[in-house]
């Protein structure tokens, strides 16, 4: 399925990812092009984060194929990926300044020894500017608000100058101004050819910034445009009686199981 003439940056065919012997997600076949955003949608535990971790190489590919920037995953491709984990995965009381956190995004370019050069500091400063955090650079990370921490981790991902950005539930816990700012940042990145993968529960936001959707529930339910994928039949297959907002209408799917 092709939506763009831009080069493909991510191609999966029959891909499966596992935690040890437990397959958490399988049957994923999709293509993402430069400048496109893909929304990953599904209930909790359905494999959305698994998908991101599989693309990043944190989890092994146990079946199918996966190509990033037209090649197999390598240390070089890893350097061109930016990752925003769920904000509850980091220790908020860790004794580092926001600037130090953002510079972590440059660590793989610096290697083990090289001190940050002007280009590294400029990339960190630019990432702080884009996320609106320049004035807080020297502040301890743990003293920032939840939304500022989230933006700080996004700045760390951006400091690596990624060609593909992977965002795990980036809108969780953000107030309206922070949400709007994040949507704007994602649009700007897309316009510069950056591909963006976003896990989210918010279908309205997905519609605002995403070109394609991957609907999952342990396996791929559907992949395509929002209109093609978010049908009642597909949503029933993915969710079991969860409220879902589609086009500003709330749909309650049958078969409620208490989640």
């Amino acid at each position: 399925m092709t939506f763009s003439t831009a080069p493909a940056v991510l191609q999966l065919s029959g891909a499966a990812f596992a935690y040890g012997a437990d397959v958490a997600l399988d049957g994923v076949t999709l293509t993402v092009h430069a400048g496109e955003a893909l929304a990953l949608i599904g209930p909790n535990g359905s494999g959305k984060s698994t998908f991101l971790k599989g693309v990043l190489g944190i989890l092994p590919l146990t079946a199918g194929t996966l190509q990033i920037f037209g090649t197999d995953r390598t240390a070089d491709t890893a350097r061109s990926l930016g990752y925003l984990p769920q904000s509850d995965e980091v220790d908020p009381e860790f004794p580092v300044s926001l600037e130090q956190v953002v510079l972590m995004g440059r660590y793989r370019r610096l290697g083990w020894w090289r001190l940050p050069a002007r280009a590294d500091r400029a990339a960190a400063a630019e990432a702080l500017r884009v996320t609106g955090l320049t004035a807080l650079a020297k502040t301890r990370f743990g003293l920032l608000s939840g939304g500022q921490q989230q933006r700080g981790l996004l700045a760390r991902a951006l400091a690596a100058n990624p060609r593909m950005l992977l965002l795990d539930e980036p809108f969780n816990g953000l107030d309206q101004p922070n949400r709007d700012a994040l949507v704007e940042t994602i649009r700007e990145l897309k316009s510069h050819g950056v591909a963006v993968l976003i896990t989210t529960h918010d279908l309205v936001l997905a519609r605002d910034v995403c070109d394609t959707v991957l609907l999952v529930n342990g396996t791929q339910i559907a992949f395509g445009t929002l209109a093609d994928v978010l049908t009642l039949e597909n949503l029933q297959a993915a969710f079991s009686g969860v409220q879902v907002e589609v086009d500003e209408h709330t749909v309650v799917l049958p078969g409620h199981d208490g989640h």
Partner: protein
Amino acid sequence: MTVLDSLTSAFALPFMGRALMVLLVLSVAAGVIGVFINLRGLEFLSDGLTHAVFPGIAAGFVVGGRDGLYVGALIAAIAAAIVLTLLANRKVSSDATIAIVLTAMFSLGVIFVSRSSDFSGQLESLLFGHLLTVTATEVVITSVVAVVALLLMVVTFRGQLFLAFDRSAAHAAGYRPVVLNLTLNVAIALVVVAASSAVGNLLVLAVLIVPGAVARLAAGRLSLLFVISAGFAMLASWIGLAAAFGLSVSADVAIPGGATVVLVFVLGYLVVLGWRAVRPISSRSGPLRSSDSRASREPVDNHA
């Protein structure tokens, strides 16, 4: 000689000079590594490692004597670090794994020592060190082992820091957590080996853990943590050693050096803890690490 005199003049004595030298070298290595133990919450794993290294120290001692124990100790240290790293990576509860390895290896060590002629005397020396009778050879071996441990941390510093802060993102950036964990565990085990003559196998845990904990209480800036941790360890070592010597001479009772040093470490920790409690809120550099702050946050994805 008064206790105050012993803070300076006592170190002119060759055995006191050697004891101080060993402690200062250990302080730098353990101070830096202790910060990472604190940041990662690896105190119990460190406890497991100290005990797991014990049979190697004991076997080395039985075969090679005091100066020869290091070969056995180094082999055991690296083996213990590898085993604990791999076991901690599996699905078995990490604490249960450590507890099982800890008790099994420690028992094995006691059995090894029981084969030596002066069982209780040797066991005491291996468990609590023999700080005031450290030989020149032991000073050299301790220094080399401690410097290697420190170098392992310096070389992997960025990866260790990134991993401690955000494991998933560090892994995503291309760092291999199992390699970094193994490096840190080997470094901890090397400090245990290095400390075996000075403070022994049981008390080394204080040298590894207290300075990092003190630094975490006292400072919120990363660069300061390492300076405070190593500086505190050096200061407490000096005061502890002088106190043991001064009390032994003035009160004419043999006070064990290693245990006194460790007590001063712990006293220092209590002083910093008290200072934190009473100082004005506005001057606080950062919150305590709360071990339940992470636990209270619910995991969003069971697989994460």
